[in-house]
Structure formats: structure tokens, C-alpha cells
């Protein structure tokens, strides 16, 4: 009898695992992918939607088109996981039994956790990015403030990238001189990684983007139009863009599969649940203290898939484990970008911003649909 492999979440990580396991087990496993919408969303594109450089439709495809024909797609929402009985309960009432389970449910944003912030803009959801672009089109002059309201959040370089792309956008519209752009950072540098911060800080200064350090957003006063930090500082804004706090999905919290924020505890190398057997988690869903990004989900997916294939075939687990590899692009505006690469043992390195990294990112964004979900890129 074929092993039942169930994957929760049709994002980058879940889709890669589904395709690789189905391909490598040669029908010794029956792979089912459960996704709440059945639409695959390329989230790195939200940044571009927010400044009008990309259309929402270009970032979405039916998940069914990205899966091998031998993977069963179930469009339904997982509401509860019972790891003792190895069952997943779905919103429709249907129950799926599993031999191996992969939790690839990503994260959700909870702007409502920040007092007064519900009216603030963000580029962490399609709706948020679309609304932000509309507000920018109507913006004529004043102060735009970009702040971070919770850690961890998806794509650590994104607020810096947004600041640079916003600067480009305001210049192109001829309103840069009438606009102040302020970037509020949780640390005393542009973002977590020191090496990359050193590289981008002079460019922020050159573009007239004001950096305020140690500003951890605590609350917003939408009437006075001010944002206040835990450190006790207050900044005025005309348009506020916040990185919302993130949590794991409800199904993790209700099933008690994760910690108090809904992040699934896994071994940082094997990606196996620290408590429950036959359960893996990858991507944003895990509690591993590395970047929540598509690249991490991608690299982890290939590792989890290889481990599941070995288990299905009754072979010993593969020697190759997840080494903490992260690779990100960081747009620095004016047609240039840099990259950030690191893993558990190698500190981050970033090359000098150049046009070729901007083009590499643009090419990756376009070719994504034909390479990554299918597991064609290592």
C-alpha cells in the first residue's frame, strides 16, 4: 500500500516537497497537498505591487498548474492536526490520514496586535500592497514613515528595499523634494545583518532617507498621526507603512503544534518536529531563528522531501541536512541591487550593489513559475 504523504500549504515550500516526493517515490507514496485557496501566490512580488511596478495578477497562478498530475490537490482549510492519530481535519469536515505530514503553512500578519495601527499601510499581503499603491498615487507631499512592528517578519531586507524603491518612485513623480522618507529600524542600523547594513547605510544617506535606530514600534495614534516606540520616542507621519507582527497559522495554534506565537519547533537540520514523529515543518512556519523567506522554504523543501522519500522507501535518512542556507536579493534603487548569502556557519556577505543583481532578481521573479515550484532548481 502506498504511503500517504500530506502537505499543508501550497506556497513555495509545500509545492516543491509535493512535486519532489511524488517524482522520487514512483507511486510508492500518494501525495496530497491541502491549500486553503488553491491559488499559488509569489509573495516577493508584493513589494513591486506596492509601488506600481507589478500587477497583482502576475503574481498568482492556480496551484493545480504547478503540481505534477500525480499529486492530489485538496482546496480546503486544515483546521486541526492530531499527531497522535496521524490525522488532519479539514474545514469541510473531511479527514485526511497521513504517514508523513509536512507543515508548510507559512505565516499570517496580525497588524491588529499593534494599538492604533489598523489603518496603517503594509506590503505584506496582496490587499495591503494594492491599497498602499493607491495611497501613494494620491500622495503629493509630506512625511512617509516606514517602521517595524514585530519580529520575526518575512523577508528581513524588505523595509530597506521598500525605502529605496519608494525613493525611485517619488523621484519619477517629481515629488521627492516635497517628501521626507523616514526608516525606523529595530536596531541601531538599517537592519539585522551588520555587513549588509554597512553597505546600504551610505546609500540611504545619499538618497536622503533618514534612518532612526532603536525604534521598535509599539503603538500608533491615527488621529494625531504619530507612531511611538517601546523606547519612548514619537515620530509624526502623513503616510505610515508598517511591517506588521507575524504569527504562525491558526491551525498550528489550535492543534498545539507550535509555540505561543504559532511557530512549529523543529530540529534546525532535519526539519523534523521536536516532539511528534512523522511531522516536518518548513519555511515561515518553523521556529528556526533564520530569515522567513522564499529561499529558506525552497532550500528546506528539498531536504524535507529527501528525508520523506527515504522514509517511504525504507532507506536510511540522507546524510545531507539543512545547513541554514539563506540567499536574498536586496534592491538598492536606481536599477541596482545586492545579494545576501549565509548559513549556520558562514556569516552574511554582500557584494557591492550593481545592475547585474537587479537584473538577476528580475529574471528570477519571471522564471520562478517554470523552475522553482517544480523543484528544478537545487
Amino acid at each position, binding site marked *: 500500500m502506498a504511503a500517504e504523504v500530506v502537505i499543508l500549504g501550497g506556497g513555495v515550500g509545500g509545492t516543491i516537497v509535493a512535486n519532489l516526493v511524488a517524482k522520487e517515490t514512483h507511486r510508492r507514496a500518494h501525495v496530497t497537498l491541502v491549500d486553503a485557496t488553491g491559488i499559488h501566490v509569489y509573495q516577493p512580488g508584493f513589494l513591486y505591487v506596492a509601488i506600481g511596478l507589478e500587477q497583482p495578477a502576475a503574481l498568482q497562478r492556480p496551484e493545480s498548474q504547478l503540481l505534477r498530475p500525480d499529486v492530489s490537490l485538496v482546496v480546503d482549510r486544515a483546521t486541526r492536526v492530531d499527531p497522535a492519530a496521524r490525522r488532519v481535519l479539514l474545514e469541510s469536515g473531511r479527514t485526511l490520514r497521513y504517514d508523513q505530514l509536512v507543515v508548510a503553512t507559512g505565516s499570517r500578519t496580525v497588524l491588529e496586535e499593534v494599538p492604533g495601527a489598523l489603518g496603517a499601510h503594509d506590503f505584506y499581503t496582496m490587499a495591503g500592497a494594492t491599497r498602499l499603491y493607491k495611497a501613494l498615487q494620491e500622495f503629493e507631499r509630506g512625511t512617509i514613515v516606514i517602521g517595524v512592528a514585530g*519580529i520575526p517578519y518575512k523577508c528581513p531586507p524588505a523595509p530597506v528595499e521598500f525605502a529605496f524603491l519608494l525613493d525611485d518612485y517619488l523621484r519619477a513623480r517629481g515629488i521627492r523634494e516635497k517628501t521626507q522618507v523616514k526608516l525606523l529600524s529595530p*536596531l*541601531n542600523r538599517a537592519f539585522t545583518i551588520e555587513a549588509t547594513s554597512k553597505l546600504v547605510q551610505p546609500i540611504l544617506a545619499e538618497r536622503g532617507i533618514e534612518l532612526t535606530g*532603536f525604534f*521598535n514600534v509599539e503603538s500608533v495614534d491615527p488621529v494625531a498621526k504619530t507612531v511611538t516606540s517601546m*523606547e519612548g520616542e514619537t515620530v509624526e507621519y502623513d503616510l505610515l507603512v508598517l511591517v506588521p507582527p507575524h504569527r504562525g497559522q491558526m491551525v498550528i495554534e489550535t492543534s498545539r503544534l507550535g509555540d505561543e506565537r504559532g511557530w512549529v519547533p523543529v530540529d534546525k537540520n532535519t526539519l523534523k518536529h521536536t516532539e511528534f514523529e512523522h511531522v516536518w515543518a518548513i519555511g515561515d512556519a518553523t521556529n528556526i531563528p533564520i530569515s522567513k523567506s522564499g529561499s529558506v522554504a525552497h532550500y528546506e523543501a528539498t531536504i524535507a522531501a529527501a528525508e520523506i522519500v527515504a522514509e517511504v522507501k525504507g532507506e536510511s535518512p540522507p546524510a545531507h541536512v539543512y545547513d541554514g542556507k539563506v540567499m536574498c536579493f536586496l534592491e538598492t534603487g536606481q536599477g541596482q541591487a545586492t545579494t545576501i548569502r549565509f548559513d549556520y556557519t558562514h556569516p552574511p556577505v554582500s557584494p557591492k550593489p550593481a545592475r547585474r543583481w537587479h537584473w538577476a532578481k528580475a529574471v528570477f521573479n519571471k522564471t520562478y513559475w517554470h523552475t522553482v515550484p517544480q523543484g528544478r532548481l537545487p
Partner: protein
Amino acid sequence: MSTTIATTLNLKGLSCPLPIIKTAKAMKELAPGQLVEVFATDPGAAPDFKAWAQATGNPLVESSQEAGIFHFILKKKEI
């Protein structure tokens, strides 16, 4: 003024800037002059806590390291 430690935070295993954020949150609950003790393992914790203390005016009264574990004591600033 109290000189005993009011709160101890075990922030081992957390990556920056989480230790800073958790400390900033805990500090808000303290009365001026009270102390918070922090244990952290993030490799960047020492320069980050030093800079945070300077930027916010909450003195860093102790900063040490033993076997990869950083130990800090910060004092809530007097208003």
C-alpha cells in the same frame, strides 16, 4: 532606589533584534532605577546592548560573557 534585580530575562537562543525588543518591553514595566538582568547568546548581543543602552539612556551596568552566554544588567533611567 532599589539595587536588587527586578526582572531576569532568559533570551538565550533568540536572534537579534529579539533580545533588544524583549528587553525594551520588560524595561517599560520597571520603575526608574530598577535593574533588569539579561542572558543572551546572539553573537551580536554585546555591541547591540551597549549601543541600545547609550541610545535610550538606560545605563548598562554590567556586561560579561562566559562560555558563549552574555550576561547584561541594565538600569532603568531616572526621569
